[in-house]
């Protein structure tokens, strides 16, 4: 199965899907998603939608942490900003802007707002690195949740009890079922993934990686650290804002507690498990992060039944399993599932010759 890799033009060599296997995989995935949207069962649609929304946010985290090497523990804030902004803009604009055009205005506004706040939160990254930056970004999460819950803004945000969200209306098409929403999420998710991949293969993406690998060397090549670090923060916040907007559209109601620290940590955990700084990393990570609790739920239900006592036992078990998984990945496979997949593909590619 040796896969010859001869190219006769630079364009062919620069292509992302540079062999037939990759092309087949991507086209099959798109076909599979289309069929799934039409025929998948309701429970699986729900799970897949959660993955899709989370995926968009993790792709954003990947740009920041995976490629630029800046750790943030506050990106739940941007998901919150996206979700609340799209809802509040929707409510304020109702009656003024035609319903069918609303998402085309409120979503870009929400994403832009998240990106703008992202630049603010990114400012400390010019001074501090690593753990210190993680702590500085942590503050963003708390401040945003505090502001949402604050009585002063409660008329718009709904405060602690949350707020009902709007049904998205795309040019007259109301996406009022989970299945229709999944269709939207799948399309937006694929486009987001593609856009991130595109970003990474141009000068901007290379500048990000350069800053991650050796910042002084990046500077000597004419890369402004100020500009690119803030750009990375803005882009990742924009992705999270987009995920938040879809989150608000998907669920009937949003609550501040859904966007607390646990979400920020989940995003980073998904990236670590999936594989940092790789296009497919977020995909693998999100599948695991969403599936593990579900699998435990099903297995535990089969073993211990559905009694209230069993339910009480299950929640901490899910947490513990998740924690153990994360530690195992950090110790054994710091580059995540992507690395495992790469290794398998490499061995398959060389078969029947030496493995490795």
């Amino acid at each position, binding site marked *: 199965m040796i896969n010859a890799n001869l190219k006769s033009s630079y364009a062919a060599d620069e292509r992302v899907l540079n062999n037939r296997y990759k092309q087949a995989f991507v086209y099959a995935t798109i076909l599979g998603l289309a069929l799934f949207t039409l025929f998948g069962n309701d429970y699986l649609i729900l799970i897949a939608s959660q993955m899709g929304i989370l995926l968009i946010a993790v792709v954003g985290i990947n740009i920041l942490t995976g490629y630029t090497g800046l750790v943030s523990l506050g990106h739940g804030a941007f998901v919150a900003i996206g979700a609340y902004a799209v809802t509040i803009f929707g409510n304020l604009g109702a009656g003024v802007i035609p319903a069918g055009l609303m998402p085309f205005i409120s979503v870009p506004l929400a994403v832009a707002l998240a990106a703008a706040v992202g630049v603010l939160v990114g400012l400390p990254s010019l001074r501090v690195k690593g753990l210190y930056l993680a702590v500085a970004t942590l503050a963003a999460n708390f401040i945003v949740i505090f502001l949402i819950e604050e009585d002063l803004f409660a008329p718009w945000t709904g405060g602690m009890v949350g707020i009902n969200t709007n049904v998205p209306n795309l040019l007259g098409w109301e996406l009022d079922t989970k299945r229709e929403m999944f269709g939207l999420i799948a399309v937006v998710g694929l486009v987001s993934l593609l856009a991130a991949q595109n970003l990474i293969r141009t000068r901007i993406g290379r500048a990000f990686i350069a800053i991650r690998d050796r910042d002084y060397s*990046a500077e000597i*090549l004419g890369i402004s650290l100020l500009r690119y670090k803030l750009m990375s923060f803005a882009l990742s916040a924009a992705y999270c804002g987009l995920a938040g907007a879809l989150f608000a559209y998907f669920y009937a109601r949003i609550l501040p507690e859904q966007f607390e620290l646990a979400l920020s940590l989940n995003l980073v955990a998904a990236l670590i498990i999936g594989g940092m700084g790789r296009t497919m990393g977020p995909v693998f990570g999100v599948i695991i992060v969403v599936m593990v609790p579900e699998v435990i739920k099903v297995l535990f239900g089969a073993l211990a039944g559905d009694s209230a006592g069993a339910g009480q036992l299950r929640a901490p078990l899910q947490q513990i399993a998740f924690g153990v998984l994360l530690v195992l990945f950090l110790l054994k496979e710091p580059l995540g599932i992507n690395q495992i997949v790469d290794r398998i593909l490499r061995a398959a590619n060389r078969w029947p010759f030496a493995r490795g």
Partner: protein
Amino acid sequence: MSSAPRAGPKQLLHGGGRLLKIEDLHLSFGGIKALQGVNFEANAGEITGVIGPNGAGKTSLFNAISGFYKPDRGRVSFEGQDITTLSPDKRAALGLARTFQNIALFRGMTVLDNIKLGGHTRLNTNVWQALRYFGAAQKAELELRREIEEQVIDFLEIDHIRKYPITMLPYGLQKRVELGRALAMRPRVLLLDEPVAGMNREETADMARFILDVQEQFGTTILLVEHDMHMVMDICSRIVVLNFGQQIASGTPEEVSKNPAVIEAYLGAAA
């Protein structure tokens, strides 16, 4: 591609312009005086060597020229423009490139991507174009790729390793890739910090050949810090000698090698 039209090698060689001028440069870290009044000019199209015993301040001088250290006193000017207070990325955009003593390549990337980074300032793809890729970004990327393949990878004879990650390469090749990355910037002035440190004789000869080729083909002005005296004497047209931050001599290789102060700095005073 927006870059100043480059003067041909001949023009630069015979123009005799002073491309890089260091005037009375002083730099100290607390009580340590790293540089005390360094003065020299790098003539356009020439190779100028900076030598001196360990701790003489050679790398500090390079860091001051490339913008990492801010000198206490003195001036660095580039083509007549005072660049003493410019940040490193702005100096890079003017046409100042360098390599590092301890290789400073991006280890998570392939050889090709590392060299492509050298072309960063010449591309102007914005975020929107980058996210879309097809169109302006693709055109710029392919143009850069072609240029790098033809002018850098082929020139440095590293086409067989272009797709390799940096970590897989031996030391000598990594040094060559770093030179390639600097060349992709199409520099007017190239600072090489110990380009052959730790290399065997054959690798040193290869690197010396590449440096001379760069000078001849691209007319690049080169400033070189090196401990390998044979190489320095062979390829430099002028040499500046530092000792304990002070400039103790400058001149042609013959003048410098006969200078008593230099002999004393290197060998100790004659008993």
